[in-house]
């Protein structure tokens, strides 16, 4: 089982769209895939039309393995299941800080479904917290969408800095360019500069696309309703790159 996190400490960069489409691409390639929506806004769940179970609301989510596995819901697509966002995530950091060995809680929960899935995606909230530190430790790769603008580049630098200061493995970070508008010189120049600076930047990039924006209307991955669109083929390419780098068989 491989764990792929989709993370950025900046909001609105296309994390959820990335998680949803990469998880779909993974499932369609025959791998049993689980997407965990760790962002309390619950956008991943929204895109798959999955509601969190009312019963589970209020239960300490990662406290016991059972409540984690009970929360898994099948999506409408083969090989793809989802852990919808749960309101208790808001309190998740408080919960983790109170627990002993709190940094291994997420790992324990994910380990409990080890044999059920080949790939687990974590759609993370945009902050650096105890939860994200758990994510950094437990993930095999951390996919970071970067809009090729000054602010996004700055947050990527901050992330690398945080990894360096806390001795996390920086090679886990796999940035890729998101919401790219090739008509803008700023985007083009930033992409060239960042590729020079960071060798791990993925070759593929995702354009700013109305097909992706329509995910909210279709409530499905862009790969499922606009498979021939350029956005869909870009996600497909990025997934292949990640699968190769994470050695997903």
């Amino acid at each position, binding site marked *: 089982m491989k764990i792929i996190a989709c993370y950025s400490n900046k909001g609105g960069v296309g994390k959820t769209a990335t998680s949803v489409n990469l998880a779909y691409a993974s499932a369609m390639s025959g791998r049993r895939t689980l997407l965990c929506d760790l962002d309390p806004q619950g956008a991943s769940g929204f895109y*798959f*039309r*999955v*509601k969190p*179970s009312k019963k589970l609301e209020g239960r300490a989510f990662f406290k016991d393995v059972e409540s984690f596995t*009970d*929360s*898994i*819901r*099948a999506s*409408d697509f083969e090989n793809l*299941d989802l852990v919808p966002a749960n309101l208790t995530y808001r309190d998740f950091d408080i919960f983790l800080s109170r627990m002993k060995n709190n940094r291994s809680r997420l790992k324990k929960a994910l380990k409990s479904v080890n044999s059920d899935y080949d790939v687990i995606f974590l759609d993370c909230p945009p902050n650096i917290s105890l939860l994200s530190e758990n994510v950094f430790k437990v993930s095999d790769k951390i996919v970071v969408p970067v809009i090729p603008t000054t602010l996004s580049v700055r947050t990527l630098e901050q992330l690398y800095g945080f990894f360096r200061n806390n001795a996390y493995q920086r090679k886990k970070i796999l940035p890729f360019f998101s919401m790219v508008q090739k008509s803008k010189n700023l985007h083009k120049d930033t992409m060239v500069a960042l590729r020079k600076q960071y060798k791990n930047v993925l070759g593929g990039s995702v354009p700013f696309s109305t097909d992706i924006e329509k995910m909210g209307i279709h*409530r499905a991955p862009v790969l499922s309703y606009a498979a021939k669109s350029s956005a869909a083929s870009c996600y497909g390419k990025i997934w292949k790159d990640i699968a190769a780098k994470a050695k997903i068989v």
Partner: protein
Amino acid sequence: MKPFSYSFSSTISSKKMKQKKPSGVPYMVNVDKGEEGEGVLLDTFDNELLLSGKLLLQRGNMLWLQNFNSGTFVDQQIDTDWSYVSDLEQGPVTLQLGMISKLRALISVGTVAVKKDSGTILDDEGKTRVRFNNLVFTKGKKSMGVGCTQPLRGYGKAHEDLKEWLLKLGVDPCPIATDLYTFVGLGDDLYCAKPVITLSSTATVKISAMIIIQTFLGVARRNEDGVIGDYDTEFLHDYRVSLRKVRSVLSLFKGGFAGDETSRLKNEFSELMQQTNTLRDLDVYLLDQSTYYKLVPTTTHAGLDVLFAGLKKTRKTEHKKVVKYISGKNYASRIEGLEKVFSKPSNLESGANSDANGRIFGCNLILKRYVKVSKIARLIDKDTDDEVVHQLRIHCKKLRYLMEFFTPFFPAADIKSLIKSLKQLQDNLGRFNDYSVQQLFLKTILTSGNYSSGKGLMVAESIGALTAMLFRLQRKERNLVMKNFARFDSSEIRDCFNELFNVEGTCQ
């Protein structure tokens, strides 16, 4: 969450489902009507698919598979003619057929018109909460349907609601699709190579022997068409094993019938089996072809190519002979005559033990054979002549047959565990014998003169290499016999034999 499988008589449409929606169920239903076309229902002769809860259909160049254990329905395109699962390319159907015996071909159970409807139960967000698939089969003016739900993880409540909904529509729960096989004309009597035999505790030796013989004669006869059609090699294998069992009953149930009659019948069955000896030998060789290639250096593979090409050709000729024989009038009158003989006890003259109690008779036979096996095996050491090991194999086989024949008289679990404990030793002895027979067979080929010139030298070289390897393997098995017997010769097993079969005293 287990899927719910069911049969139904009339089409289940969205409209019908909406009309019968149980109160309080908050979901919407959608049934997509599928296309209708002719399809062939496929299974192995011993119905491995049906018994494992799967239904396989071929429609043109598409395969459909409904799995009643998981509720999933998968399809796969096929581009070539195929008989065995190994002929299929990788795909979702092939993946689900992985459990099928490699030796068994998929053959037609029947041809039907078939239609697949897929249903989904949706919540207010349009999210699928549970799926179901209905297959409607039509033959002539009659039609029947089988369906299965596909539960989705995390939506157990919706699955329970759908189950209630379907039951309200009048479906009948059915764990496997046996009714469908009957519908397409297979009948209720599914084939089984080892049928469960029922013997009354008061049955006499003669009656017990007749019931066992009738059963295995029936099994042999059911394989005749498959032997002729040559769908796979298991038909001939089962045919021969069944006849061998009949012959064993005749020779082991001493005094069950009059002596002269027993000898005559034994000869009859031996003659029947002899007709297929060569074909079976060739089958065994050809089935093991890839193993033989792995045993010898690649430099001798060219010789093996010639050898196996020759064996394949011989098999064709040999199969033609067998077909001619089994389809002939002589065979029909002989086998029908034998069936008639064993149809009524009065058709056979009684022997000294005919009226004895079958169970007690069986106990004595098993125990005597067990003692014999133990006596021979305990004498075997590393220097004992191979002939003694062969004798041990034959006695073990007889012991196994006896235990199988008399299984109905004893608690199934106990006797099955004893048979299992014997199996390891038997497998060891079986391989020892196979390697010996194979060496002899190769020697016969060498001395046949068919490979004396040209490519013959190449073949001779391969046979030499193969014989050396088979000899080595035979020695390896020979050295394991003592260890395997020691395992079988435990005090627990001895106690178990005594407890089950000793009606008089204790055996050692």
